[in-house]
Structure formats: C-alpha cells, structure tokens
C-alpha cells in the first residue's frame, strides 16, 4: 500500500508557514515585553511543531536546524539564557533561514544556503550560560548527568489506535531511544472475554518509569500523532511536579510520590496554539459552492416572497408566518456562510511588525507601529488583495512621511514616530487606515510636480484636497531621491488601481507637519451587493449602490441638448452629461422623453454622469452570478443575478458603461 505523502507535505508547508508567522509575531512582541512567558512558550511550540513535521515528512535539514534552534529556545525558556537584542536578532535570522529551508523543501528555491554557520551561532548562544549543557547539534539526545529526572508515564492507547495505524509498541520503542526505562508494566485488565474481543482493537495499557534528561515535550513527542481517545499521563515521579507551564520551576510537593497530571500535552499544545484565530482549513472550492447554494436559497426565498404578496394574506396567516420565518433563517444562514470566507484582517496586518522593524533600522528612524481593529473580518480574496497596497502605503509612510528623530525633536514632536494601521466597519463597508504623525504631504511640491508632469495646469484652482489626490496619478512621485524603499513613482498609482480592482476606493488626507493618513474603503464581500434595480424596456438592470450618488426625476427645463457636446442635465448648480441606458444597450425604451423617466447620478473615476432609465424599482441585495462562465465578458456588464420571478437581470459595471459611453462620444465628435 502506498500513501501519497505529497498531500500531507502540502499541509505541512501550510502549517509551517503559519507557525513561522506566529513565531515571528511572538518574537517581535517578546522584544517589547521580555517577561511574557506565554510568548516564549508559543515560540517554542512553533519551533517544536516544525521540527516534528519536517522530520516526519523527510526534510532532515529543516529538522536538524530547527533542533538547534529549539535547544536554544529551551535554554531561554528555562531562564538559563536571557533574551536580548542580539539574541532576538539571531532568532529572527534563524526564522528567515527556516523560511528559506522550507521553500527549498517545497522546491521553490534551488539551492539551500548553508546552515552550519547559523547552527554554530545558535549552539554558541545556548552555551553562554555557565549552567548550560552541551548541546547536540543533530537530532540525538544525550543524557547529561545532573539534569536527569525520573518520570512516570501512564500510557493507554485508544481502542482505535491500531486500526488507525498507530502502533503503541513503536511509540514505546521511540521512547526507549531518548529515555532509560527502568520499569515497565503492562495492564491487561482491559482485555474483554474472548467472545467479545475485537481483534483489531487495543485493550492494553502500560505504565513505565524512566530516567532521562529529555524534557516533557520531548517525552510526549512519540505520542503526538496518536488517536484522540488515548490517554498519556506524564508525571515527574521524584517528588516533584511540573505544572502546565513548562517554564515554571518545579514546586516541591509534600511527600507526594506520584501526582497525576491529567493533561495530554500533545493535544493541549494544539489547542493553545489554535486559540488565536483558530482556523479550519476548507478548500475555497467547497466554500464557493456553499456560497452559491445559499445564493439559491435567497433566490427561492424572494420567489416565495413575490408569490405571497399576490395572495390574500388574511386567509393565509400560516403561510406568511412560514415565509417570514424562512426569511429570517435564510438570512442568518447566509450571514454564517458568508462568514466562512471572512478572515480577520490580522492576516493582512501580520507582516507589518517585522517589515516596520526592519525598515526602521534601514532608514535609521525610530518608529512605533500601532495596530488596531485587527479582528475586523474581511473576505479572504480582499485580504489577499490588500496586502501589497498596504505594504506600499506603509513603506511610503516610513520613507517619506516619518522624519528622522532629530528632525522630529526640532519640530517639537516626540522622537519616536507613530505609524498606525487600523481597520473598522463604517456603514456597509470596511475602512482600513494607514496613518503616520510625520511631516504630512507637501502641497507645493506635489502641485509643482503635477504641473511639471502636465497632469494639471498652473491656473487650475485646486483645493488642497484635490492636490492630495494627484499622488494617485500614474507616474507621480515626489521623492527627491529614489531610495530602496519607494520613490519609483509607481507606488500610489498601483495602490489606487489595486484597490479599485476589488471595488474599493482610496482617499488621502494630510495636515502639514502633523501627519498623513490614507483611508481605503472596501466592500464587505465580493459575492453579494446592494443594488438599485431599474427598468429599461422590458429588462431589469441593477446598479451597485456604491456607485450611486442620488436618483432624480429630471424636469423638462433642466434637460438641454448642447451642440457637439450632447445631452446634459442640470442638477442644482452642476451640468452633468446624460447617458441614455436604452441607447447604450440598443433596446426600445418605454419613455419617449427624458423627463418621463428617472435619472441615476453615478460617480466614476472622479466624474459624475446621469444615467437615464425608464423607471426606478426597489433596492435589494443581489447575489452576483458570472456571465463569463458560460458566455463571455460583456462591456458595461459586471455580471448577472436572478430576480424573484426567476428572470435574469444584468448588473451594470458603471466604469465600463461610462468608458463605452465616452468612447462613443469621442467617435461621434
């Protein structure tokens, strides 16, 4: 029987990536708060799991390197080595090294860098304390006189263990490799009478006494993968009891030879590490199917709604009740299922503590990073998509915004600059803000540059607000010298494009000398949108609410046809171009004059346009369906949805529609 190990390896890679991220964030936190033992335990657990996994899946380089790292961490945990900036830099370096080693194992990177130098430094660091024990470099424990302890282990494999391929005997053999077993007894009392016995079940339990220098974690390691109903009790039997916290010094117990500690260490480690943002891995494909299904439910729901509206509801109280109940539960279900795709924004923010830490030292600036609203949830696609734009913004703030310490002190500000990343709900959307308390945007310089680049002309009377938005124009950069970090003049342009691509918008505000803040507004999800339905001819179209400014009924005297410009409508003090939807889509309208219909004012890429439709219908949440799956992309159409009566309604892609409209106007002119 051959088992395809590659899928397990994939899981290992994913898990180790998570472990490494956790390692990193804990380490950076530990730098600030060296007394937090839980952080240290967390780091240790990460290293330990990676070591275990890499050995199991056949990556000896990773395993042996992680082993030396783990040894050092163990010394730190036992307070034999003190964590300082040199050490934490070494640990960060090792972390990067592990990342490289793992990507080598994945086959992403060709050659592995030599680990020997770093291992030697790790070993060195673990030796700095006089009490430290000689540390083996390769995975092979040696007993060290003096730190030996007597352990008592009760091991009762679950009945299913053998069926699941966990051979208890092999685990005991493994244990013999790291500990000297002085006594072993087998408890056969669990064996049932012959006629009731299942030959594949495991009924036996063992208890053994052993002397070893290995620590608890190492002793329970052989049992790590055993089935959940197994019992592994490890106790220090020489009158000492080690508490749940590995690092807590042993507390003497009065004459208590054996204190049963009920925990199952391997499993506990798993739960603790999962308690923060505990994740379940579900394939995106399954999720998407589930989301589609719920979309269906919503559709059948609205069908039911439209049916009941036409019925004599006074006689059908039961039905209406049922429908309203279904409405509640289907909404709830929808929210739950949509929630599956949501991840905490922590996933996107996670990379910044390290990034800021590194960039600050490169730029020689003192920066404090403040994160808030990390638990705000956002669609997984969006989380992935905002990573790069956020990095751009953070780099920009560090490079251009925040000043060096002397400059800050001269300006009467604290020497340490503050860079804050925050996320919060605002209306139906999520706002992510990147703010710094640096020098702010330089209005004159931006304007001068923009005029220089021909983006605006010198006599355009622009407000500061308008000038700030110029930095989002392609090819704009004010950095006087191109640095490693930014200044290639593509940053803000790319940020703008990337955010627009996922249906969001970017705005920058700035106060000279006080700082600059960039706000990114994002929709909650990309699978459902709030839309305004409208009728044109026999068709129903839907415009996303996010694009709409307002809806009006034009008066005859406000509509003008200007030669060579086209139709315009006056809305208060503004004249807006009119786009007749029926013309754009080539259908026969039901109205003959614009003032018989309604106009939807939309904003797109900074311009306002009035879209003429026959009639406005209601607002509703619609499930977005793809036209491309079975057909193809259609200019001006973002997708389709299904109405309460089962008909298909097209969802308008406002920017696309406007582009097509302007293209036609240009052709006509």
């Amino acid at each position, binding site marked *: 029987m051959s088992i395809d190990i590659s899928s397990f390896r994939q899981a290992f890679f994913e898990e180790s990536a998570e472990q490494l991220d956790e390692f990193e964030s804990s380490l950076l936190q530990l730098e600030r708060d060296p007394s937090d033992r839980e952080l240290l335990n967390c780091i240790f657990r990460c290293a330990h799991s990676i070591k275990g996994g890499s050995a199991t899946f056949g990556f000896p380089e990773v395993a042996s390197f992680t082993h030396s790292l783990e040894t050092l961490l163990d010394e730190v945990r036992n307070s034999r080595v003190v964590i300082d900036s040199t050490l934490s830099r070494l640990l960060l370096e090792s972390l990067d090294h592990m990342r490289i080693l793992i990507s080598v194992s994945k086959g992403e990177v060709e050659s592995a860098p030599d680990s020997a130098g770093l291992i030697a430094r790790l070993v060195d660091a673990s030796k700095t304390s006089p009490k430290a024990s000689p540390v083996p470099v390769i995975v092979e424990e040696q007993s060290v006189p003096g730190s030996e302890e007597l352990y008592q282990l009760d091991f009762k494999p679950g009945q299913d263990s053998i069926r699941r391929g966990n051979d208890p005997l092999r685990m005991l053999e493994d244990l013999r490799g790291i500990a000297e077993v002085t006594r072993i007894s087998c408890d056969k009392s669990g064996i049932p009478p012959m006629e009731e016995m299942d030959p594949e079940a495991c009924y036996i339990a063992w208890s053994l006494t052993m002397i070893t220098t290995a620590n608890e974690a190492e002793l329970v390691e052989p049992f790590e993968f055993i089935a959940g109903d197994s019992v592994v009790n490890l106790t220090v039997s020489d009158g000492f009891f080690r508490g749940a916290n590995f690092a807590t010094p042993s507390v003497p117990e009065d004459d208590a030879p054996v204190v049963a500690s009920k925990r199952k260490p391997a499993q506990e480690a798993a739960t603790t590490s999962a308690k923060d943002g505990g994740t379940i891995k579900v394939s995106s494909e399954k999720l998407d199917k589930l989301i*589609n299904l719920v*979309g*269906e439910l919503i*559709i059948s729901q609205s069908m039911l709604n439209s049916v009941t509206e036409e019925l004599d509801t006074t006689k059908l109280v039961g039905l209406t009740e049922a429908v309203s109940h279904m409405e509640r539960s289907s909404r709830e279900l929808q929210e739950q299922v949509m929630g599956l795709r949501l991840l905490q924004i922590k996933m996107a923010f996670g990379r910044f503590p390290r990034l800021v830490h590194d960039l600050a030292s490169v730029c020689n600036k003192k920066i404090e990073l403040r994160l808030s609203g990390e638990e705000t949830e956002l669609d997984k696609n969006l989380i992935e998509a905002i990573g790069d734009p956020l990095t751009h913004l953070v780099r920009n703030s560090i490079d251009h915004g925040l000043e060096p310490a002397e400059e800050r002190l001269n300006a009467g500000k604290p020497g340490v600059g503050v860079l804050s990343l925050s996320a919060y709900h605002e209306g139906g959307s999520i706002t992510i803000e990147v703010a710094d308390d640096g020098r702010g945007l330089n209005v004159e310089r931006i304007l001068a540059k923009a005029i220089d680049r021909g983006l605006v002309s010198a006599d355009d009377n622009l407000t500061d607000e308008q000038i700030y938005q110029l930095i989002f124009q392609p090819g704009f950069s004010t950095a006087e010298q191109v640095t490693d970090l930014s200044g290639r003049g593509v940053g803000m342009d790319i940020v703008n494009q990337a955010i627009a691509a996922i249906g969001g918008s970017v705005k920058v505000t700035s106060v000279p000398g006080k700082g600059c803040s960039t706000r990114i507004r994002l929709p909650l999800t990309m699978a459902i949108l709030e839309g305004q339905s409208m009728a044109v001819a026999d*068709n129903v179209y839907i415009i996303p609410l996010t694009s709409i400014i307002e809806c009006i009924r034009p008066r005859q005297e406000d509509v003008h046809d200007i030669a060579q410009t086209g139709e315009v409508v006056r809305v208060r003090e503004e004249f807006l171009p009119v786009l007749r939807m029926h013309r*754009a*889509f*080539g*259908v026969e309208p039901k109205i003959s004059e614009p003032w018989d219909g309604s106009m939807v004012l939309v904003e797109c890429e900074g311009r306002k346009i009035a879209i003429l439709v026959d009639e406005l219908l209601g607002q509703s949440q619609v499930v977005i*369906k*793809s*036209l491309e*799956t*079975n*057909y*193809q992309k*259609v*200019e*001006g*159409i973002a997708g*389709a949805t*299904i109405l309460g009566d*089962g*008909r*298909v*309604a*097209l969802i308008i892609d406002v920017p696309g529609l406007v582009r097509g409209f302007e293209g036609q106007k240009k052709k006509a002119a």
Partner: protein
Amino acid sequence: METEQKKLPEGTDLASYTNQFLTFTLADEEYGVDILKVQEIKGYVATTRIPNAPPHVTGVLNLRGTIVPIIDLRRTFNLPEVVYDQFTVIVVVVVHDRVMGMIVDSVSEVMNIMAEDIQPPPNLGKGGSNALRGLGKVDDKLVILLDIDAVLLDEASLATAA
C-alpha cells in the same frame, strides 16, 4: 476530438462513435446531435437580452442558478425566423464545459443510427460544412447530424469578434 471528426470525411472507422442522437426539427428538416452532449430539454421561456450581442444570441436564461446563453439555431443557420410557440424547445448542451441552450422548432426522439448508415457530409464547397458530422439515414428519412461543438464554438468565437 475535433481532429477525429475532421477525419470523418475520409471514411475512417465510424464504428467507434456513439450512435445515439437526439433529433429535432428546424424548418421542416430533421437534425440530430450526439446524445452525450445534451444536458436537458426545456420549454421555451423568454430570455434576458445581452447588450451588443450578435443577433443569434437571443439572451441569457436562469437554469437553476446558472446563467446560460441561449442561441437561436434558425438565426445561426440563416433560416427564416418564426414566432416561438408551445412546441419551441430549448435544448441545453454542454460543449467544452460551457452550458448553452439552442432554440429549435421541436424535439422529435432519441434515435439509434448505425455507423454504416451515416454518410460523410457532402462536399458543398466552403460553405459551412464543418458544422456537419454526417448524414444519417433512418428508414427513408434523412437526419442531418450536427457537430455541435463546431456549431456553437464557432458562434462563441463570432460573438467575441462582435
């Protein structure tokens, strides 16, 4: 698959082809498509027009939550248009993982046509014969067997060009 079908006119081994066909009528002629391509048959319902689509694409339809483009085969084959009636049927087919509907006058039956009863398409010059898979003889009737992939994918590429 396409290359296999191109070999057909040269009289290659026809026995390896499936020989069950769904037949339907279009302007009094009997047509057949490979039954394995057919997903389902449904009565005609009004479609939602797609802006700027080519004329033979009448619109899209909601097929249990999937948006499916609908093609009028009469328009595709430049046949005179008729008013859709209660016999008008949409044959839903799957070509290259795409679900599409074809509007036909009516469906007839599922037929077994032996490979030896299928003649390679006549050489009509360059005019559209690649949409034909062959001509089937059943008793005295003639069934025009369509290569539905070629018909619809040609249309799809046409639509892209439009």
